[in-house]
């Protein structure tokens, strides 16, 4: 991964302790975010998010499917992440698989709520067309193009932007017979926008020494003892939580980190909103 000498590691740790990181940021400051929408024409919605040198693409593809028997009134959403070998040589072949799986699982936990589908950031019942018969299956694919730390936050931001860029075709049900599969007509012209106000953002706090930082670069991540990713929605509610890294955390520290993440996330949402508006304006 990143090779750093003792002197450089010491310098990075010192910077975090003194609240002045290597690129001049404070501990709770993000790198500049830039957002582009509609980057994949075939997809229903897509977005590219750059966070410093981290570069990710998210695309949303909607397909008609059958809801699961356990939850006949809800649509299905699945999230996959792929790490491109262009990001780092170690992602070549099957090298990126472990990281890809970790990221997909973390994103599912943070965005899709529990196994029952309750508490999901994406409103699953809005994906249903005919109860128990037809629903939309959303396939969310993330691609890591360039990796310089904080992939999870960038991917979550990209998914949020892509969802706000997504248009789902309007569907009208033709034959509404009760037992067999109903006929549906998918409109080519009319699209429905998603309600993305409930989609959370993820803020990862990386603990280095006694302090924690947001938006760590890969050099800083190499010095972390543990990291907590908190997903927070617009109303400041915690939607999900995952922890990485071997070192344990005191419960009081965890609570403190969550409250910090909560306040940072509100700034991030504001920045993302203005970036989304700018990206959509430039697209038109």
């Amino acid at each position, binding site marked *: 991964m990143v090779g750093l*000498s*003792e*002197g*450089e590691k*010491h310098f990075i*740790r010192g*910077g975090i302790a003194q609240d*002045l990181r290597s690129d*001049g940021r404070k501990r709770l*400051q993000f790198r500049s975010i830039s957002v582009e929408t509609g980057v994949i024409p075939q997809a229903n919605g897509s977005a590219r998010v750059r966070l410093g040198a981290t570069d990710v693409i998210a695309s949303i593809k909607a397909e008609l499917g059958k809801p699961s028997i356990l939850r006949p009134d809800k649509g299905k959403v699945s999230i996959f992440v792929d790490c491109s070998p262009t990001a780092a040589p170690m992602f070549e072949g099957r090298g990126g698989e472990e990281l890809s799986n970790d990221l997909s699982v973390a994103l599912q936990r943070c965005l899709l709520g529990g196994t029952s589908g309750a508490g999901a950031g994406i409103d699953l019942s809005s994906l249903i067309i005919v109860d128990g018969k037809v629903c939309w299956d959303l396939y969310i694919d993330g691609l890591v193009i360039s990796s310089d730390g904080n992939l999870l936050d960038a991917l979550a931001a990209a998914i949020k932007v892509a969802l706000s860029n997504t248009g789902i075709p309007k569907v009208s049900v033709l034959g509404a017979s009760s037992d067999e599969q109903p006929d549906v007509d998918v409109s080519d012209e009319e699209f429905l926008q998603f309600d993305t106000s409930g989609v959370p953002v993820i803020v990862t706090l990386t603990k280095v020494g006694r302090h924690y930082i947001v938006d760590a670069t890969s050099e800083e991540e190499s010095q972390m003892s543990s990291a907590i990713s908190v997903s927070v929605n617009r109303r400041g509610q915690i939607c999900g939580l995952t922890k990485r890294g071997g070192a344990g955390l005191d419960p009081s520290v965890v609570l403190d980190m969550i409250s910090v993440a909560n306040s940072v996330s509100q700034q991030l949402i504001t920045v993302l909103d203005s970036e989304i508006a700018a990206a959509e304006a430039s697209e038109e």
Partner: protein
Amino acid sequence: MRDLQPSLNQTQRVRLQSALRQLHSLPSSSSSSPLSSVAVADPIQVNHDDNILKGHGTLDCDGEVVATLCGVVERVNKLVYVRALRARYKPEVGDIIVGRVIEIAPKRWRLEINFSQVAVLMLSSMNLPDGIQRRRTAVDELNMRSIFEENDVICAEVRGFQHDGSLHLQARSQKYGKLERGQLLTVPAYLVKRRKQHFHHLEQYGVDLIIGCNGFIWVGEHVEAGENVGMLVEDQKKTSTAEEESWSFTPLETRKHICRIANAVRLLSALGFTLTVEAIVDTAEASLASNIEINDMLGAEFFVQTAEREVQRRASMVRKKG
């Protein structure tokens, strides 16, 4: 250096474009030779009577010499070749480089220096810590890790190519050696020109700046030559607790200067300007003068301002010449 792409707003974009256009129209500082940058398939002007030799990146096409690379046409006597920009570093004897140790092998360290192969630093071509000139023994060889470890950043000089084509380095002076307490930046190698001086001690800041010819740039706390060998590592082994470690951190004031200089380097390399110590210090001074936070140096506004300042500088240089 990974690319920095600030998101510009409409007015900033217009300003940047006009600045870049002006830069194109102004002759660059080394414009004594005729304009010789080529893209792929551009014809290269040659005098066919001279019996020229076509070198790297050129092709004979219907009696005309065309370029097969994007870069600068170089002429050495009869040889005509294209030096590609955005390529790996090409070492020349005497270049001062900064590199990172990737492997310790018998009697030598192997270094990554952004060349097409790893560079070799022999144990025999470097000064021992005690400074005594003598034959290197097997004991010295066993203690090589106490001099440089894997991943250490070190500074050395290109000694020459061996018969088998491998590149050898040397570090026979107090000023070469391990670099600690600072950060390493990587920029495209073509942005660094070989000059007389590559070690800079910026006294007003207490910062050491080493501009390696291979595009590796070290910005760190100032240390007197020869006083720091292995000091930090021993310090750290003694100080185990975080409390004690914090005493050995770089002072905040110096760290601010290091970060400011480092961001100046990042900014200039993103703009594609040649990295000289004057340009770097000028940029850092300008950011101080206009009260720009260290982090905002990478933002859109200062990005555009730096481009505009370069236009003014070159324009005034042209006026002086004229």
